[in-house]
């Protein structure tokens, strides 16, 4: 095992967190390499230094009491939220859906009524002019009509005719 690899495995080796195979390889390398041995020693000193700074704290005697109050409060909040969500699911959504459907039906009926009335008028044999009017509007045939009387378009066409100019 090369020095670079050994150095990377040293923390795990010193913490007894490497496999037996790796441990044997590192041990063998340390027996033959002074540089890595010194590295291992330095890391051991560092670990000892870190262990010396072991200021610890203890929980206060009323730790659980305070926590329990928080739990009770959190559960109360969760129950309130659950109640609101249930009310929304049971009441608001069905009512909202019903309103949307009713509006949809109403609008649909109005639109359908208008179209139906128009179709009925067109299909009425007494309303043949309405049929022609509907065709004109649908196919935009009114652009082929003559200009209205005394309109600028009619005057212009008249002038062209008088001067024998192409229309």
């Amino acid at each position, binding site marked *: 095992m090369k020095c670079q690899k050994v*150095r*990377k*495995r*040293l*923390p*795990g080796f010193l*913490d007894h*967190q490497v496999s037996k195979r790796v441990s044997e390889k590192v041990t063998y390398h340390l027996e033959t390499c002074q540089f890595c041995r010194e590295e291992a020693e*330095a*890391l051991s*000193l*560092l*670990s*000892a*230094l*870190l*262990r*010396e*700074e*072991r*200021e*610890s*704290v*203890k*929980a*206060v005697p009323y*730790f*659980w009491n*305070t*926590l*329990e109050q*928080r*739990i009770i409060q*959190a559960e109360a909040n*969760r129950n309130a939220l659950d109640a609101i969500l249930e009310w929304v699911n049971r009441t608001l959504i069905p009512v909202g859906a019903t309103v949307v459907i009713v509006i949809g039906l109403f609008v649909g009926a109005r639109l359908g009524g208008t179209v139906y009335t128009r179709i009925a008028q067109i299909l009425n044999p007494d309303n043949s002019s309405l049929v022609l009017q509907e065709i004109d509007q649908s196919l935009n045939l009114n652009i082929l009509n003559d200009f209205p009387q005394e309109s600028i378009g009619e005057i212009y066409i008249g002038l062209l005719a008088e001067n024998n100019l192409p229309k």
Partner: protein
Amino acid sequence: MDESELIHRYIQGDRSAFRQLVEKYQDQVLNISYRFLRNKEEAEEAAQEVFLKVYLSTNSYQHKTKFSTWLFRIAVNYCINKLREKRKLPSSQLEEDLPAPVEFQPDRLLEQENLNRAVREAIDSLPEQQRAAILLSQYGEFSYQEMAQMLDCSISAVESRLFRAKENLRKILTPFLKKDEI
């Protein structure tokens, strides 16, 4: 009652079982939080929040991991997030948490205090991931596998972070790394 029974009852919503789990792990959670946050009041608050989250998150606990591993993972994540929030604060607010500087005097007790302070500051100066790894390794005494689960990374990542953390600490603490001072 053994721990697995307590955990089973806690998941069913038994608060007294949960209380026993809290009393078993409260000091460890508190100390991990204190190592990260360096403030006793904040550590207490963090420990409370962690246990509250654990109590309300029974659906998140997967039985394939140890309860303690899952608990400390929540604690570590909470503390890391808290540190990130603190970093966003203006520096005047952060200074209130720093202890007053100790003047170095050639006295054995103060020397030890200086050493401890130097070690704490050195650890605090590490990048977040390295700091978490070193704190769990040195003060939590967890296996690398447990640490990997807590830190949500691979075992080789844990080794790598510890390696870099110790390299950095050695550079900072070189004046203190003399055999006769240990």
